[in-house]
């Protein structure tokens, strides 16, 4: 069950601006494929195009090598879990799960068997006679899942299924969903705006922004090798630092006191955007040779997130060990950058990834 998108585009009627353009990707059998992006980027529209609920303006959608642009939803052999669950309020849990099977006129025994199995799989067997309104949010979520399982479709589309749950339940459901997907060998296409969900669950992630695909890659690669500054910024907490730097012959000058060496020959702009992960910054507290002033400190238990102003008033986020003694208005010195990405200042595309040196960010004299 592979799904192939070839230059899929969507323009709504009466509008000239496409909401999606040139989306191409192949989703493999048994893959947990996450579509992620900020709200309004068209990710739900894309999912609905795959489901057949929204028409395709141009391009080709293939399911198992067969062109499916005009195929009605039911013939695509897929199931869908909605953000709002879409349960039928006047049916109990078991009827909700079996409803689709019943309307497909499956034999009664088969329906019972599948419903029981699906309910057992999501631990809802005892609540089978309850109505949706007598269930908690997490339980309703499970009913929606059981309905997808019972359909035995090999492709399951999920539209932000966890976003109505509280943080703890969400973390738990993430693991359960992932296990379920692996046990049933499902191909899951999962839409979310939450980068953590994308990173923790996906085999591969498609990042959408600005109507376009920004990158399709494994979570690890998205983090380590972002194709552009949007992807770099989207993944990782706290967010990556994007600082503008002037380029000289052999150095990138972020501000008068923070210079980084150039090791790549591909930088030939006069200005670039430098991406530095907060955890890759090494600092020392103290006014001697300082080049930044602490603006805020957030304590996160095992680590500190320090927000500091460089002397050209750019802001930098730094992750440090929680044992470090630092307070707002303290002066700090950035002593090293472990590694950093260089992006084009206009196109925001990646130019190169550079290894820095934790002890060798050349730091000019303090100007504080």
């Amino acid at each position: 069950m592979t799904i192939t998108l070839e230059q899929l585009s969507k323009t709504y009627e009466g509008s000239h601006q496409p909401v999606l353009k040139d989306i191409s990707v192949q989703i493999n059998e048994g893959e947990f494929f996450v579509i992620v992006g900020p709200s309004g980027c068209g990710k739900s529209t894309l999912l609905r195009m795959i489901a057949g609920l929204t028409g395709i303006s141009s391009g080709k959608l293939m399911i198992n090598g067969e062109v499916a642009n005009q195929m009605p939803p039911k013939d695509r052999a897929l199931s869908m879990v909605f953000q709002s669950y879409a349960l039928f309020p006047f049916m109990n849990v078991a009827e909700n799960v079996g409803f689709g099977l019943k309307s497909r006129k499956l034999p009664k025994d088969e329906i019972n068997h599948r419903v029981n199995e699906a309910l057992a799989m999501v631990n809802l067997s005892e609540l089978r006679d309850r109505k949706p309104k007598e269930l908690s949010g997490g339980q309703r979520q499970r009913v929606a899942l059981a309905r997808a399982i019972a359909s035995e479709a090999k492709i399951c589309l999920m539209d932000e299924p966890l976003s109505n749950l509280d943080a703890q339940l969400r973390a738990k459901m993430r693991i359960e969903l992932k296990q379920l997907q692996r046990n049933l060998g499902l191909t899951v296409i999962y839409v979310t705006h939450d980068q953590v969900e994308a990173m923790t669950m996906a085999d591969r992630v498609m990042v959408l922004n600005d109507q376009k695909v920004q990158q399709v890659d494994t979570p690890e690669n998205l983090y380590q090798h972002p194709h552009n500054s949007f992807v770099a910024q989207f993944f990782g907490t706290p967010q990556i630092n994007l600082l503008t730097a002037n380029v000289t012959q052999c150095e990138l000058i972020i501000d008068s006191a923070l210079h980084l060496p150039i090791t790549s020959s591909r930088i030939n702009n006069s200005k670039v955007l430098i991406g530095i992960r907060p955890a890759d910054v090494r600092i020392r507290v103290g006014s001697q040779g300082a080049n930044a002033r602490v603006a805020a400190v957030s304590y996160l238990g095992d680590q500190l997130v320090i927000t500091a102003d460089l002397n050209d008033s750019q802001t930098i986020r730094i992750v440090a060990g929680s044992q470090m003694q630092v307070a707002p208005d303290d002066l700090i010195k950035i002593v090293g950058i472990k590694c950093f990405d260089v992006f084009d200042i206009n196109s925001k595309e990646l130019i190169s990834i550079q290894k820095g040196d934790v002890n060798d960010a050349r730091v000019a004299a303090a100007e504080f």
Partner: protein
Amino acid sequence: MEMSRPATPTTNSANAKKVGQYVLLLILTLLVLGPFILGLWTSLMPTADISKGALWSSHISLDNYVTAITTTPMLRYLLNSLVISTITMLFQVLLCSISAYAFVFLEFKYRKQLFMLFLITMMLPFEAEVIPNFSTVRSMGLLNHYAAMVIPFLTAAFGTFMLRQSFMQMPIELKEAADIEGLSHLQFYWRLALPYTKVSLMTLAAYSFLSSWNQYLWPMLTTFSDNFRPVQDGLRQLQGQESFNNWGMIQASAAIVVIPTLIILFVGQHYFKAGLNEGAVK
């Protein structure tokens, strides 16, 4: 010390306000129910006492009801009305829900314009349609028959409008889920849309039954015999123009006519409660 002193002035004024509200409600209730109770009461009094304008009688009995049922075609009127109102109600619920479904879930050209046209017909008062309707019914040869009282009321723009609103309130995800399960429009209409809008359907059913039951002008124009005359016109028939009027009996008949209305309201109350669709989404 501040804490231990309850805010007496506020509580007292709140109480006074509440008492005032209840007194007002009570007066309004009496005003509304007064004539109704008076009518029910006089239906139990002999006509001789009613004619004297008395409000009390020593001969309270159900005699008037017995007279109404035995000496007048009251039961026939009731049957006529029941047949007419039930058929009208069933068809209005069916046809209005089907057309409302089309306006919400089917996509076709000029859908908006067509619906506007529907709404415009609501602006036309029934009295304005009486003459064309009458000549239509007459040329179809349906005068003095149930059909004359049913066919012009098989559907109503108001019903379509009302059900369209409640169909539009269904979460779009339910339709999408149904599409993925492969439900046809008929299946979705019958098995999901109708149960989901049960409250609105009940309301429309009660409304159309009662408005058909309470019809007076139209049946008066189109029926000439007791075999087809509905209750409201039957009641009028009981009151002779010249002869002596048995007011007690007429009053008893009026009470009988009101009974179905009351039944519908009491039964309806059970259904017209909110929260039936809780838990569909979120």
